[in-house]
């Protein structure tokens, strides 16, 4: 299973974290610190796997951003590597050529999308189309609610004028 997902920038800034195994805040900080030290220093032509404290971390760099997933020692590494890519492709489709800034200012969107992809550290959906459809449906639900709210507040505003 995937124990956690980390998105770290090349400068070591955290862009997203999602923990599927229980860690305290202290442990989380420590893990991030340790792993940024290990992963950010790795050269470009090395393999995408790092052995770390009895686990394996599968990572891939996209432009300035490192996507990392921590798995058990005998999980299938390549499978997880492609989960990362799958996630990136979905983000790309959603934001339209995604960049780091998209993820910084819309980190909540990145969370929504991740939740449609993984639950309990396991892959739940391997169709990009399905994920995109579900996210679009969520967005429109939020949009409708906003419109309703604004129309109600308009009514109230006008009524109390």
């Amino acid at each position, binding site marked *: 299973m995937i124990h956690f997902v980390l998105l770290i920038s090349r400068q070591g800034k955290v862009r997203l974290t999602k923990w*599927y195994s*229980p860690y305290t805040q202290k442990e989380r900080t420590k893990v991030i610190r340790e792993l940024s030290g290990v992963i950010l220093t790795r050269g470009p032509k090395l393999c995408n796997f790092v052995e770390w404290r009895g686990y394996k971390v599968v990572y891939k760099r996209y432009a300035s951003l490192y996507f990392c997933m921590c798995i058990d020692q*005998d999980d299938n590494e390549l499978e997880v590597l492609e989960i990362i890519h799958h996630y990136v492709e979905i983000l790309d489709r959603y934001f339209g050529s995604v960049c780091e*800034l*998209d993820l910084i200012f819309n*980190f909540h969107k990145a969370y929504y999308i991740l939740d449609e992809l993984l639950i309990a550290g396991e*892959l739940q959906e391997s169709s990009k189309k399905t994920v995109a459809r579900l996210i679009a449906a*969520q967005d429109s639900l939020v949009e409708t609610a906003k419109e309703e*709210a604004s129309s109600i507040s308009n009514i109230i505003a006008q009524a109390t004028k």
Partner: protein
Amino acid sequence: MALSGMRGLSVFISDIRNCQNKEQERLRVDKELGNVRTRFKNEKGLTPYEKKKYVWKMLYIYMLGYDVDFGHMEAVSLISAPKYPEKQVGYIVTSCLLNENHDFLRLAINTVRNDIIGRNETFQCLALTMVGNIGGREFAESLAPDVQKLLISSSCRPLVRKKAALCLLRLYRKNPDVVNVDGWSDRMAQLLDERDLGVLTSSMSLLVALVSNNHDAYWSCLPKCVKILERLARNQDVPQEYTYYGIPTPWLQVKTMRALQYFPTIEDPNTRRSLFEVLQRILMGTDVVKNVNKNNASHAVLFEALALVMHLDAEKEMMSQCVALLGKFIAVREPNIRYLGLENMTRMLMVSDVQDIIKRHQAQIITSLKDPDISIRRRALDLLYGMCDVSNAKDIVEELLQYLSSADFAMREELSLKAAILAEKFAPDLSWYVDVILQLIDKAGDFVSDDIWFRVVQFVTNNEDLQPYAAAKAREYLDKPAIHETMVKVSAYLLGEYSHLLARRPGCSPKEIFGIIHEKLPTVSTSTVPILLSTYAKILMHTQPSDPELQNQIWAIFSKYESCIDVEIQQRAVEYFALSRKGAALMDILAEMPKFPERQSSLLKKAEDAEVDTAEQSAIKLRAQQQTSNALVVTDQRPANGTPHVGQLGLVMVPSSANADHNLEDQGLAQENGTLSKVDPQSPSPSADLLGDLLGPLAIEGPPGAAAPTEQHAIPASEGDPNPADALALAPVDEQTNSVQPIGNIAERFNALCLKDSGVLYEDPNIQIGIKAEWRAHHGRLVLFLGNKNTSSLASVQALILPPSHLKMELSLVPETIPPRAQVQCPLEVMNLRPSRDVAVLDFSYKFGTSSVNVKLRLPAVLNKFLHPIAVTAEEFFPQWRSLSGPPLKLQEVVRGVRPMLLLEMANLFNSLRLMVCPGLDPNANNLVASTTFYSESTRAMLCLVRIETDPADRTQLRMTVSSGDPTLTFELKEFIKEQLVSIPTATRPPAPQVAQPTSAATSLTDPGAMLAGLL
């Protein structure tokens, strides 16, 4: 760039981004936290939008690593908001902010449950996602039934059900009882019929978790998994959107194969065949392509297929195909594939005997040890460690030593421990071992634990030949300018004990030795000083005639340390000072250290401890555990006095059924008489007519309880031999003093060797006897490998062959002593004179220290070794079959009490006995026809035909017909096959009253014939 849609949040994020340093960032965060805190305090005034915004800010701050110790309540309370946008934020922030142990989660259980059982699909999804990501025990207890309902409900849409499956998986991890409901395994099997691949992917993850803990309940899922795999591998009915770079959902393929690895075997031949077809297709059909993602995805599937093939212990051909693939992978440039190639090759070492093929890649693996990538270097080190044995230890260890100087700090400790273990385990000679360890200490002293140098001292102390060499080496190292303290310790110890052996060499006079050691004294820590003091005392003792100058020097040192603050040093100084004035008494007390008792290497123990891992069970670990538990069972069966239970040793099964009884009786009689003609006509098996066959078993089918005891007494009586028929096999000559216990089950080892040509025949803590055999026609050449496992010699080694009358055997000379850690090869020539099932025995004995060990081992020069499988066509078979009509050339018998096995298994057994199964000759699919050629001097090459007719309704009985051109051969072959088919009783028999007495064993020793009878 899209902004968050919440202006305040975007502004805050921009501010954080604009901070020049950590300090500024902290100030900005603190300001925001203060702001959020005050806003939450006046909660009344917050609109849902504001609440949402603040909660997101909190999460952002938390994500950056700051503690957020308030506002959890607000996040949780959003979960119960009536509208979707707030609820969504509530769920997602809660699942990020809190973990399963958090108290606030309890507050939410009711709302979550209402959302799960409610009608609103989007709310269900949110609730399931959160529970799936952070649900703990309490959630498991209160929500599992509802989640289960959603998963199997036919009215729910796939988007809810796939979340329910993973949610249930999470709850199952927290509390395995959640699936302890009647019929859950059936439902699980039904879930695998799902057409929606999203639901199927999630359900498969659930299945993997379930079978990893308990596969027994889920056998019905196995064929379905194979079906799914077939469907995906053939790309049948896979929607375009589930194809990833042209590969039908690689993730589901991987998961399905993972699930299959938790089932110990696949019994059903059809399922097995279709699975192997799929696996073969994956192994053969995966090519390296340009597109990285396609490559990764297809290799993810390929590596999982490799793991499954290894698990299923496939046919040798497929295994070597796997090794060939891995060999290709470890040589490619693509680092991921190389990494995985090395990793999987290491796994391959654990599961099957392909070491020889892997060894061919040694040079390539060593190259990876120098790879720029530490991940790859680690894998290479592990693999080298795993594949090391006597044949390549020298190369590998020297490679490791060389690498040690340039290795990363992080790897040095592991590296030196591994090098030390390998050097110890596989040293071709002990001086090399000493060299390696001293080099190790020299190059990486900081990483060489005390255990390692203690072990060197043990070896040197126990081997006199080694002592001058080790002392000379130690002396050489002392000349180096800056040596590690561990080197000071070990060389001081060795020189104290053995420097007198070097006395005539230049630079090795007591005075010079003392001088060079004493130079180091100021540089060492308090733990080393006592060792140096002992060395001085020993040097003093060995200096004959005594040298007053040296004596005074050393005395001065002793008296200096008499007031040392360290107790150990002080005590030694005082004692050595007093002793050294006593003259002769010093000689006794400071005499050379006696030999150490043999013990398990503490290094190996350390390595074993280090490997204890609490991580989740994996297929391979599970297998390893199963293996160890097997070993335990074997030991448990052994009675308290240590003699292996006789029942396991007899080639013929111990009677527990009437049928087996008569079997034994036959043999007793056949043995006694030596010919067939005198066989009791009452005894059914030699009788060839069909009626006799059918009646025979009935005739003796009395109450087994009554039959067995008479049987036990009958045989010894009839043979006139004090040995019970089945009690001897491996009774050591003197049970009382023989404290050495065999490792592993001797009978099992023998049985295994009957089917293959090389392996271990016997092993105990001191010696391992391996065997390698080649057979050509009626000749055979066996080589016995006698390997001394100890650090001191085995003496009085004797190997005596007790051949049965039909075998001519010549054993080459066996040396009387086997040097430490050495392996001696003794060729044994065998010639088969005529057909017989009698077995040759090796009477082997040796002395180790005070204990002498004597074992009698059956040699696997059995009837089937002189068979040569031959395929016959229908045109050849039938005329031959008809021409051999009736007894004594053609014998038929109904065999009962057969170990139930599928026809395929039986065919495999026959093939491994070198009886070639010829499919298609018999029109009845339940029958089996086999042919082979038997070679002996009297019969020359003789064609043998066998036909087995099975009854699918009752697999415990079958009818067997054997024919050949020689009556003895026909009979012997029939009996031989019967022995292989009849089931081994599992119930242990009460110990026979006639326990082998030392005296009787002694008589049997002088009488090979009687002993052979005893073995049977």
